[in-house]
């Protein structure tokens, strides 16, 4: 792939703008609440697009295009089966507790609902996971630029990471969120022509399905019923329960990376709408990632012509094939934007959890607010530096998307059990949360060890991840239930605002229908059902 002056100019302009937004917000970070929570002042459409964008790391974009080339339309399940119901659930049912209880982070909610040790366990595991994930994102990006442009690996990792560090250092979460909105539009405008040109090249949708290597690639649901029939080797139970329920609800409902965007909203209806607004573009994202993956495998079924032997090359190879100079600059900017928005999401979530839930709680409590604001800035730089270091560690793993889902299966899956019981069952006792969560993580570790040493066998790594999530979640729920039986319940008056049955429902009667979370969620799920049927 050959870059012209115009492509470089486009990339440079992009860097100028993201840094400019950071500088514009620099003077406004006066308290730690400004830095970590944007002073709870941002309109719903902005937090919604940021919610969507923080999830769109380079790995998400390139990984799902690679998965589409490898597994076909089965990948749509990550969007329509996994993300949609979970995003609607967090908006309608869970955001009232997160936002209403005025917590600053997900671990802080756990302290209010359970106790200090539950919070600390979650804060530590989340901080670790976030650093690992941001490293993977960096690595994915660096590999891409090295392969594509022969840009030196290390230099471009450090340069892009430094830009992210600077704009968060200056403008905190606000800067991250505002840049995510800009990045969202760049991602859409950068990848959409690929879908248009790709479909034109293979002769429309009918031409595409005719060129796919096997009929299973053109269907989302048709071959799900038996593991042997679909390319991923997973049956309906593993897919629906493992991915559709445990992994997706664990990620969308409890991962602070996304929840934090909702907490920055200016009022309760905006907080509730945040995931719902994000769900609309998310629903159509298969057009921009799954479709190019399918086009890649249709044009190059033996991976010899464009893909160079690797599914991971699907998206960048298609950019190189279809984009002329000029548009190529826009496409590469979109990749950079997706990488930065994912990285920034991880960094802002990490610096908040580190500063409030670990540093302020255990290391150095009782300092003036200014001290924690500076700590947040320091943690930003630290997170980016560790991210760069982990990028070199993950060099040893060869399938990144599987690795990412593995991390989620370790940490998010059991956490969802803790949240579900804590939010919707007032009897759940203070101690049970910690033991349930710990045993869930240990169950995930045990399952992983057994799979790693071939004691348990699965047809694919992805199938192993789905079942690991199911085990971690189930163990967490069972242990939490058992411990609750033998320990004292908490007093009901302490749980007001934290548990569903003890919290007054948000009053939305005076909002117009299109702003009510429940109605929006129903519309989104109905539209999603239609997409599922069309691409059955």
């Amino acid at each position, binding site marked *: 792939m050959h870059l012209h002056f*115009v492509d470089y*100019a*486009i990339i440079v*302009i*992009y860097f100028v*703008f993201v840094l*400019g*937004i950071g500088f*514009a*917000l620099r003077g*406004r970070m006066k308290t730690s609440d*400004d830095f970590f929570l*944007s*002073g709870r*002042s*941002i*309109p719903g459409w*902005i937090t919604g697009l940021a919610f969507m964008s923080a999830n769109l790391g380079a790995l998400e974009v390139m990984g799902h295009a690679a998965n589409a080339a490898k597994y076909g339309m089965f990948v749509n399940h990550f969007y329509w089966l996994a993300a949609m119901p979970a995003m609607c659930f967090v908006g309608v049912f869970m955001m009232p507790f997160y936002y209403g209880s005025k917590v600053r982070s997900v671990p802080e909610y756990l302290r209010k609902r359970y106790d200090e040790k539950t919070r600390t366990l979650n804060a530590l595991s989340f901080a670790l996971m976030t650093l690992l994930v941001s490293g993977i994102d960096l690595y994915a990006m660096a590999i891409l630029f090295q392969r594509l442009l022969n840009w030196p690996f290390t230099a471009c990792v450090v340069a892009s990471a430094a830009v992210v560090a600077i704009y968060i250092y200056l403008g905190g979460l*606000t800067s991250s969120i*505002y840049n995510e*909105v*800009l990045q969202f*539009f760049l991602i859409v*405008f950068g990848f959409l*022509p690929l879908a248009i*040109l790709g479909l*034109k*090249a293979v002769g429309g949708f009918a031409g595409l399905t005719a060129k796919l290597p096997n009929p299973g690639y053109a269907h989302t649901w048709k071959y799900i019923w038996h593991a042997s029939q679909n390319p991923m080797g997973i049956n309906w139970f593993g897919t629906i329960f493992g991915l559709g329920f445990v992994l997706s609800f664990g990620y969308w409902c409890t991962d602070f990376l996304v929840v934090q965007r909702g907490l920055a909203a*200016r009022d309760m209806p905006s907080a509730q709408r945040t995931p719902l607004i994000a769900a609309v573009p998310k629903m159509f994202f298969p057009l921009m990632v799954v479709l190019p993956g399918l086009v890649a495998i249709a044009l190059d079924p033996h991976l010899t012509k464009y893909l160079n032997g690797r599914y991971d090359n699907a998206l960048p190879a298609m950019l190189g*094939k*279809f*984009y*002329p*100079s*000029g*548009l190529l600059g*826009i496409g590469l900017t979109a990749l950079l934007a997706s990488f930065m928005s994912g990285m920034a999401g991880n960094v802002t979530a990490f610096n908040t959890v580190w500063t409030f839930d670990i540093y302020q709680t255990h290391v150095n409590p009782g300092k003036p607010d200014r001290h924690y604001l500076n700590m947040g800035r320091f943690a930003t730089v630290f997170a980016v530096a560790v991210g760069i270091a982990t990028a070199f560690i993950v060099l040893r793993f060869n399938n990144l998307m599987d690795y990412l889902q593995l991390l989620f299966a370790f940490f998010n899956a059991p956490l969802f059990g803790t949240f579900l019981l804590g939010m919707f069952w007032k009897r759940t006792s203070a101690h049970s949360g910690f033991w349930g969560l710990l045993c869930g993580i240990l169950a995930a570790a045990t399952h992983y060890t057994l799979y790693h040493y071939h004691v348990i066998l699965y047809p694919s790594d992805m199938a192993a991840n789905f079942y690991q999530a199911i085990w971690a979640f189930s163990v967490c729920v069972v242990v939490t239930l058992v411990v609750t039986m033998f320990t004292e319940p908490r007093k009901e008056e302490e749980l007001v605002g934290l548990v569903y049955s003890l919290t007054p429902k948000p009053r939305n009667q005076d909002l117009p229908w299109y702003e009510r979370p429940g109605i929006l969620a129903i519309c989104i799920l109905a539209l999603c059902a239609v997409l599922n049927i069309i691409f059955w």
Partner: protein
Amino acid sequence: MKTMGLDIRLPIGIIFTIYGAILIIYGAVADPAIFVNSLGVNIDIWWGAAMLIFGLVMGTLAFKASHRKV
């Protein structure tokens, strides 16, 4: 829509307007041979126009909002 003193639609409007203009100009002067890639379509001009329109709409919205406040 002004929050914390910055209307995000303004920078979005400006960057898309600049990108749109760059793509249109480059598409007009570039050697047509480069559009073999994009199946013979001068995608730079077409997509540049789309980005330009989006940028102008965003910029106008931000401009109107800032004047309503005063």
